[in-house]
């Protein structure tokens, strides 16, 4: 005996039998002319309900569905209610799921059909009328039962499919995100090392492998500090790692060295980032490092090259400054030689000897000043009274000023200014500037003024003269070997500039014919904080 199908079981449940089939065929023949009207009214009703109507794509589709409804009405009165019939009905439920028609409209729509068909059946008052009504109710309920059943199955399928698709999409998105982060970590040209709470390496990226020469397998699970010999002179890196692992970083940046697999040391700047105890991940601290060994070497080479260039410039200037006195001495020696040969006057010979002596002194002085400039002694700071220093400098230059016919005056404050400074060097600065000013004022028989005053944060010393001024406002007067004075070494202002800079101060000049002011500004307060 074959197993009863679901359709057969339903038919048995509502007691749908051959008589019903026969009655329905007879009913169908009579009602068929009204099927198009029923279908039209059915869809007119749907138009009144926007949510039901919205599932349709347009009037063209509705016209097609109206025709389908007519065919369906003919089918339920077709007389054959086999498995093929069941399958066609099931299809209707699936279509409703597909187009997204809410289930409630299936039920209410069926009520419309039922009412329309029963009205037709009611027109007959014959003895078969009640039987036809029953047959109609049975077949329509069978339809509804099948549609609902397949609607549900299809709906569940659909939900499952959507869930499955979402699952797949989610998986893809996760894979994509992971791929992206892995790439970011692996392709980054910085070392990225992840440490667990015990300071052991749990993540070691490609750049870390490249820089250290270790494969990650060799280091995973090893303590970072000991495995890579990560250290620095004052143990700041290990200390900060400890802080970092505890989530209490004082500073994110720390410089250290790494010992590579081959034993070389590389300088690395680390940026430590605390990730905390995230669920499921034992990496609590990321150390992101940049290998600065090559950059440092490059900087060092550049510094060296600049130093050599500066030395070259100085050497050229020095050579010239040496050649001039040598030239003077040489020429006077040639003269002496000739004079001795022809027994010239003693006066001429003495004069030539004096010149040679002068030139030798000039050379000696040049060497002293050059060393002073090129290899200055470190500052010897003490409390220096600028008031006394200015008075002292003025006294020391007064004889020269008098001899040159230059009036030398000082404009000094009542209260003293005391700074931490190298007294001897500051005196040298003041003497340099005052002597230059006297030389300049001498050409016009003018005046030189030394001024001291206090600004909120600085002590200001001005040396002013009324001489002809600098030859050009752009003249590099603070460069070594730049000189406009005959017999000058060209180092005086360079040394002045250096000394003032070493004190954390500045020296500026403003010059026009008749008024030239050299201004020195020295920081008050603790000069050691400001100077290197």
């Amino acid at each position, binding site marked *: 005996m074959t197993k009863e199908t679901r359709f057969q079981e339903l038919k048995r449940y509502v007691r749908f039998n051959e008589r019903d089939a026969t009655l329905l065929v007879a009913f169908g023949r009579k009602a068929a002319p009204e099927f198009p009207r029923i279908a039209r009214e059915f869809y007119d009703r749907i138009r009144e309900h926007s949510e039901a109507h919205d599932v349709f794509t347009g009037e063209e589709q509705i016209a097609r569905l109206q025709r389908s409804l007519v065919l369906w009405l003919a089918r339920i009165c077709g007389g054959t209610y086999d498995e093929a019939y069941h399958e066609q009905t099931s299809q209707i439920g699936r279509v409703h799921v597909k187009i997204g028609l809410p289930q409630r409209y299936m039920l209410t729509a069926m009520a419309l059909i039922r009412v329309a068909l029963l009205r037709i059946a009611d027109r007959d008052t014959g003895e078969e009328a009640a039987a036809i009504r029953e047959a109609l109710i049975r077949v329509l309920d069978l339809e509804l039962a099948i549609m609902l059943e397949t609607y549900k199955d299809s709906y569940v399928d659909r939900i499952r499919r959507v869930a499955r698709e979402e699952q797949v999409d989610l998986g893809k998105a996760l894979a994509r995100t992971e791929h992206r982060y892995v790439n970011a970590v692996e392709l980054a040209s910085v070392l990225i090392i992840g440490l667990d709470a015990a300071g052991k390496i749990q993540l070691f990226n490609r750049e870390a492998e490249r820089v250290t020469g270790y494969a990650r397998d060799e280091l995973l699970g090893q303590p970072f500090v000991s495995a890579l010999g990560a250290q620095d002179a004052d143990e700041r890196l290990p200390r900060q790692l400890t802080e970092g692992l505890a989530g209490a970083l004082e500073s994110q940046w720390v410089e250290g060295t790494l010992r590579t697999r081959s034993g070389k040391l590389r300088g690395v700047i680390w940026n430590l980032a605390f990730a905390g105890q995230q669920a499921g991940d034992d990496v609590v601290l990321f150390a992101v490092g940049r290998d600065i060994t090559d950059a440092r070497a490059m900087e060092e080479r550049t510094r060296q090259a600049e130093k050599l260039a500066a030395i070259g410039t100085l050497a*050229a200037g020095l*050579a*010239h*400054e*040496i*050649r*001039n006195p*040598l*030239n*003077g*001495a*040489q*020429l*006077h020696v*040639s*003269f002496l030689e*000739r004079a001795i040969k022809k027994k010239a006057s003693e006066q001429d010979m003495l004069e*030539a000897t004096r*010149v040679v002596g002068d030139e030798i002194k000039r050379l000696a002085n040049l060497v002293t000043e050059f060393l002073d400039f090129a290899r200055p002694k470190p500052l010897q700071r003490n409390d220096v009274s600028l008031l006394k220093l200015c008075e002292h400098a003025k006294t020391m230059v007064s004889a020269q000023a008098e001899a040159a016919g230059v009036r030398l005056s000082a404009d000094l404050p009542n209260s003293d200014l005391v700074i931490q400074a190298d007294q001897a060097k500051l005196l040298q600065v003041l003497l340099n500037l005052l002597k230059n000013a006297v030389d300049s004022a001498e050409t016009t028989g003018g005046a030189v003024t030394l001024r001291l005053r206090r600004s909120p944060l600085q002590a200001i010393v001005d040396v002013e003269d009324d001489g*002809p001024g600098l*030859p*050009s406002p752009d*003249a590099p007067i603070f460069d070594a070997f730049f000189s*406009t004075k*005959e017999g000058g070494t060209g180092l005086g202002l360079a040394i002045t500039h250096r000394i003032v800079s070493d004190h954390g101060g500045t020296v500026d000049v403003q010059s026009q014919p008749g008024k030239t002011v050299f201004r020195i500004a020295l920081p008050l307060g603790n000069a050691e904080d400001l100077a290197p």
Partner: protein
Amino acid sequence: MLDPSSHPHLVLLVDDDVRTSRRMADMLREDGFAVEIARDGAAAVARLARAPVPDAIVTEFNTTHVDGTAVGHFARARRPGIPIIFATGYPQLFQPGAFGSEPPLVFTKPVDYASLRDALTSALSRANPTEVTERDLSALATAVRVQSTSTDD
């Protein structure tokens, strides 16, 4: 050695170190030259603008107001082919191509007097300088203004 009885060649010495220039002038005069001194580049240009134009010029490169190269150009403009000798502490400033087919001689300080004098004598014996007329002077002065690195004092 030149014949002191003939009309002596006039040499212009240009150097900021006047004391040494004077001594060299004394020695050159003893050796039969007529010598004048300019203490900077501007003074040299001013002297070259006047007649008689010197027969030779000895100058430093690094002279005040107008540099030695510009002085040399002005001298060549005044007297084409005039022998130029640079006696300098800055031999690296010499640009060999700057003076055409008759390049100046360059002596690096300290200069050996006898060598310099001999070079001067031999250059003067080769040179046949012709003086430029006053008519050309203004154009030449313009040329020098362009080349010089003069600064106002």
